[in-house]
Structures are given as structure tokens and as C-alpha cells.
């Protein structure tokens, strides 16, 4: 594991030569959407869904509150579909060496590779590797890419697809709905409790190629699942768009945990819509770590639709020089006796900007709802920026809503103390940053925790 992390220690430069069999060209027109749908052999209803979404995307303005100029994105220069002409692989031996080299570089731990049963790795927009562990199949778990999901499991897929995040939710969910490819479809049947997390590795590899994966996870009554996704992007010269949509449905008493670690190169625009619906006594936890990118806008949401449902958000954001992290959470209490919990920590380095944008809403009909929000910001340098904009919209009776926020800076005195203990300045900052995050890093699976600590140290070295 440590060897892999050493491999990982060179920031950026994760690019490998790859040949692309399908390419929808640059720019976005109706033909682009038709082309994507045709290549994927999609049914008529989905093509119509995509075309409707394209119209919505074209009609919606770019939200005026977006904090960073999106002009460098050049929507007409982006490649909206690009796929390696590969069938999903089931055996490690069948995975091309080039892809294995990428895994090496990403530092996918050895033990995880052994567990590639139940693991999907998306290499560009299609799965380069997909293998279902025997025990998962026996439990009736479906874990496939989104195209396979809609083609082979239409009766489960179609009624839920696009319902939690409709295309018209925002401009970028509309874009995703029009051109999506890749992502996962997961169904966990009633009562199935998965001890092993399901994992997916995503990465972007083609310059100017926007990645629009689409994930739909349905967890049936009393079932439990943890899903892990990790991302690193190669460093490219021109801007790259990542606009994903994730929809979760937690049926009564189901538990879903969705863990994301993203480490984008600083030219990526990461505009993601994540939302889950929690039915009666169900529980949805988003655990999200965002590092890098030019701009990340991501506010995972839980709609607490059934009584006693519970939503939780654990968020870590790191904004380095020239980066803007606009992250947060939304908790929508539509039913009584629902509770939600938000823990957000952000770090801004040099002139990086980390903003917390959160919403807690309690519907008029919802009684006895509880929310606790805590956001902590750490600023490393004098020019670092931190912002907080919580929105509370409480209409129901007897709601308990609590918001706490702290802002702190790394002090010269702390750095001097650590240097006296033999740590270089960047090591000292790495230690202080990891100290700040400790409490939340524990929420990540151990390998991720170790990897994240290493990443934080790397972030401090990039000065």
C-alpha cells in the first residue's frame, strides 16, 4: 500500500495515451444526442428523454450566482461522447495493461484490486472493468453501468430514472440528462445487507471531453449498501467539464452511504447534482471529499420524504491557488420526525476560495424535525478566503434547527513550534490540516483515509 502511495506522490500528470473508438465530435447539437443514443442502442423513450433535456439545457440560462466565469468552458468545443470500444471485463487478466498502469498511478491499493469483484472502474465514459462478485449475484444485487441498467433492467430502472433529479432541476442536470454515458445502476433487493462496499473508479482521460456519468441507486426495504467513488483527473491545458447526476432512492428502513473522493486537476469544472430520497425510517449519508478543480459546485441533498427518515452529510473541501470550492448540503424535511446532520470542513490555501452553501428546509406539514449543521473553515494563508451562506427555511412546528460555524487560521506560532520539532513548513501545514480534518477523515474507509492524508500533504507541498 505504501508503495502505491509513493507512486501516487507525483501530483497531476495522470495522463496515458488511449485510442477512442467512438467520438461524437465537438459541440452539442440534436445530432450529437441522437448519435450517443444510437451508439448505445437505446430505446425510443430514452432518446426522447435526452432530446427533451437538450431543449431544457438550451433554454435555461447559466445561473447568475455561479461564482466563477464559465466562459473558458466553451460548450461548443467540448466532446460530449467518447468511449473506448470495449465490452465490460469480468476478469482482471482481461484488463488492458494501459488501464492497469492507470490504476497503478492512481494508487488503487492491492487489496482493493483483489476485491475487484463487486467493483466497477469507469475508464472514460464506459466501464473498462466490471466484475460482479458471486455472492452479490446470489443476493440478487444488480451492479452494472447505467446503459446496461436501462437496457437489461428497464422495469426497475425506468420508473425511478430522472425522478429524484429531473432534467429541469438545473442547467447542468439538464445537460447530463441529454448526453449522459457511464455511471452505475445499482439495485439492492429487500433485506439485503452488503458488508462489502461497492466501488467505482472514475477518471477523465480525453482532453476537452466532458464526463457526464449518471448513477442511479435503488435500495429496497430494509436493505443496506455503501457505495464508493474516487476520482482523479489528468492534468490538461484546456478546461474540462464534469457534470454528473446521482440519484438515490432509499425505500423504507433502507440505509445508503455514498462516499466520494474527488481530486481534480485545476482546469476541471465539476458541477454535480446529487440527491437522494429517503422514505420512512430510511437513512441516507453522503460523504464527500472535494479536492482541486477550477470550480466545484456540489450540494448533495437528502429529501426526507417519510417519517423518521434521516439524512447526513459529511463534507471536506480543499481549495488551492486559483480554485473555487462551492460546496454544501441540502436537507429537505418533508415529513414529520425527520432528522438531518451536516458536518462540513473546508480548507483554503493561498488565494483559494472555499464556500459553504447549505439549505435546511422544513415543510409546513412536517412536525418535530431536527437539523444540526456545523461548518468549520481553516485558512492557511493570509490571502485565503472562506465564505459561509446557510439558508434556513423552517415552516413546520416544533422544529429544532441548529447551526454552528467556526473559522480559524494556521498561526505562525504553530508553524514555528512544528519546525522546532523538525518538520518543514509544508509538513507542518500538512499535519495541522490533517488535524483539522481528523474527525471527518474517520468517516472514510481506512484506505481512503490514508490516501486522503497523503493527498493533503501533497496539497501543502504544491506551493
Amino acid at each position: 500500500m505504501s508503495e502505491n502511495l509513493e507512486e501516487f506522490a507525483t501530483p497531476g500528470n495522470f495522463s496515458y495515451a488511449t485510442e477512442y473508438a467512438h467520438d461524437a465530435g465537438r459541440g452539442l447539437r440534436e445530432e450529437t444526442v441522437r448519435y450517443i443514443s444510437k451508439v448505445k442502442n437505446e430505446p425510443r423513450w430514452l432518446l426522447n428523454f435526452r432530446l427533451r433535456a437538450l431543449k431544457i439545457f438550451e433554454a435555461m440560462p447559466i445561473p447568475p450566482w455561479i461564482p466563477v466565469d464559465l466562459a473558458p468552458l466553451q460548450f461548443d468545443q467540448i466532446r460530449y461522447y467518447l468511449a473506448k470500444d470495449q465490452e465490460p471485463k469480468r476478469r482482471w487478466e482481461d484488463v488492458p495493461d494501459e488501464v492497469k498502469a492507470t490504476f497503478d498511478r492512481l494508487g488503487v491499493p492491492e487489496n482493493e484490486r483483489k476485491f475487484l469483484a463487486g467493483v466497477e472502474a469507469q475508464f472514460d465514459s464506459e466501464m473498462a472493468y466490471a466484475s460482479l462478485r458471486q455472492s452479490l449475484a446470489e443476493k440478487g444485487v444488480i451492479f452494472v453501468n447505467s446503459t446496461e441498467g436501462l437496457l437489461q433492467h428497464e422495469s426497475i430502472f425506468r420508473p425511478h430514472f430522472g425522478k429524484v433529479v429531473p432534467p429541469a432541476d438545473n442547467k447542468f442536470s439538464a445537460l447530463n440528462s441529454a448526453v449522459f454515458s457511464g455511471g452505475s445502476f445499482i439495485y439492492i433487493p429487500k433485506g439485503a445487507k452488503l458488508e462489502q462496499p461497492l466501488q467505482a473508479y472514475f477518471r477523465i482521460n480525453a482532453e476537452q471531453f466532458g464526463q457526464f456519468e449518471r448513477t442511479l441507486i435503488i435500495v429496497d426495504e430494509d436493505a443496506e449498501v455503501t457505495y464508493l467513488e474516487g476520482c482523479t483527473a489528468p492534468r490538461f491545458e484546456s478546461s474540462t467539464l464534469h457534470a454528473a447526476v446521482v440519484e438515490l432512492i432509499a425505500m423504507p428502513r433502507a440505509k445508503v452511504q455514498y462516499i466520494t473522493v474527488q481530486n481534480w486537476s485545476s482546469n476541471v469544472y465539476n458541477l454535480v447534482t446529487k440527491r437522494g430520497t429517503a422514505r420512512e425510517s430510511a437513512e441516507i449519508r453522503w460523504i464527500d471529499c472535494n479536492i482541486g478543480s477550477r470550480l466545484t459546485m456540489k450540494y448533495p441533498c437528502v429529501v426526507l420524504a417519510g417519517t423518521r427518515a434521516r439524512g447526513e452529510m459529511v463534507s471536506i473541501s480543499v481549495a488551492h491557488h486559483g480554485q473555487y470550492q462551492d460546496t454544501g448540503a441540502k436537507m429537505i424535511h418533508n415529513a414529520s420526525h425527520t432528522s438531518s446532520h451536516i458536518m462540513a470542513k473546508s480548507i483554503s490555501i493561498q488565494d483559494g476560495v472555499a464556500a459553504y452553501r447549505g439549505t435546511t428546509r422544513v415543510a409546513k406539514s412536517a412536525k418535530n424535525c431536527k437539523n444540526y449543521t456545523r461548518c468549520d473553515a481553516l485558512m492557511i494563508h493570509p490571502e485565503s478566503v472562506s465564505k459561509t451562506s446557510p439558508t434556513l427555511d423552517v415552516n413546520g412546528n416544533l422544529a429544532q434547527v441548529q447551526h454552528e460555524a467556526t473559522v480559524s487560521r494556521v498561526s505562525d506560532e504553530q508553524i514555528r513550534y512544528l519546525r522546532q520539532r523538525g518538520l518543514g513548513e509544508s509538513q507542518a501545514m500538512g499535519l495541522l490540516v490533517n488535524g483539522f480534518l481528523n474527525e471527518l477523515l474517520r468517516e472514510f474507509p481506512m484506505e481512503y483515509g490514508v490516501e486522503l492524508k497523503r493527498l493533503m500533504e501533497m496539497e501543502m507541498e504544491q506551493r
Partner: protein
Amino acid sequence: MRDVLAIRDLYLNVAGKAVLYGLSLAIPAGEIHVIMGRNGSGKSSLLHALVGQIPVASGAVTLDGESLLELPQEVIARKGLFLAFQMPVALPGVTVTQLLRAALQARQEKGKLFNHMQFHDDLEAAMELMGMDPSWANRHVNDGFSGGERKRCEMLQAIMLKPKYVLLDEIDSGLDVDATGIMVNAIRLLQRRGTGILIVTHHSRWLEALNPNGVHLLSDGVILRSGDMELARTIELEGFQAVQ
């Protein structure tokens, strides 16, 4: 030849004011030396200058013949100078274990594997010596610590990091009788290891058990007088004017 920390003709200005002018002192390895002096006489500034935290105006500081001046603070630390701060700063979220591990890893040769087992054994033993229960390992460094707890934590680090020289800035202040006893034991352990020790203090009584090799009076920016425990006793009983 024995290792030595040598200070020669040291001049030091703090906030535009001359604090030391021409101070010289040599501390051979394995010896205990004590500096006493009035408030504001520059004792603490001297210690901070030795570890590179205050730039010196002129003079020489050498460790085993090698100049320490101009070296970055962390390099001086890795070469073997440890300062136990009088008022160490809190590091919220950073546990005692994490600090020590990071500090030891920073001293390690590149490519060498860190021995976690050895580390935990050493830490357990050092905490026991310092009268710290195992929960200390996971406490956040100096965060919410009492004055006495901070001093213990500083000494724990001195034991764990195995420096060549330990500089103790009023390590005895605010300690109760038991804690002082623990501190004396720790200093003896360091001495047995061959560590050189420079103590800045206002009190002589606790030094009796240490039997220091030298006691020095810092006054007017220089070492005005040097002697043994007798000098410390005189200062404690009769005040600074009696020895000046």
C-alpha cells in the same frame, strides 16, 4: 574529543534592543548546565536564538564543530537541538501520537521504513516515565492542557525525539511536587543517554537532585559568573545583587 554545544561571543537584538552582547558558553554532551538571571535578562531569548527562532546579530553557535547559524529551524531541530517551550502553542486536532510520529518521520532517512511497533513501545514507556496514562496518546497537543500538562508533554517529546541537546525553558514552573519529581527523573534519563541539558529557571531547590555541572548567571547580556550549585543557592537565598 567529546561533543559540545558551543556559544561564542553571541550578540542578539530583540525588537531593536540589544539583549545579549558577547555571551559565550560551552555545554559538553551529557552535562547539565543551568542559567539563572533576572526577568528580561535574555535567558529565554538565548534559547530561542540557539534553535534558530531569533536571528543573531553576530557570534558563533556550533554543534560538534558545525555552525548552526543560518540553518533553517527544522534543520537545527533535526541536527539535535530540542527546545521545551515555556508556553507551547496548542495544535487543535493533532494528537500527541501524530505529532511525535511526524517529527520522527521527518528525521528518518529517505526510503527507510518507519518502525510502528517500536514507536508504540517507546511511546508507552516514555508516557509511563512521565506519569501519563495511555489516553494521552490521543489527546490533541496542548489543546486544553493545564500548565503542568503542557510541561509534561514537552518533556515527553524530548524523550521520544532523542535530541543531542535539550533546552528547558522554565520547565519547572507551575509544577507540583510530584510532577517536579517526574521531571527530575526524566532529565536524569536524558543525561544517562548522553544528552546535554541547558536549563533556564528561577528556582534552585529542584536542581539539588540533579547536581548540575555548571550554574551560570546571565546579567548585562553576558555570563557574569559561573559556578556550581552553591551559586544557585546563594541566588535563591540572597537575591541577584548578592552575586553581582
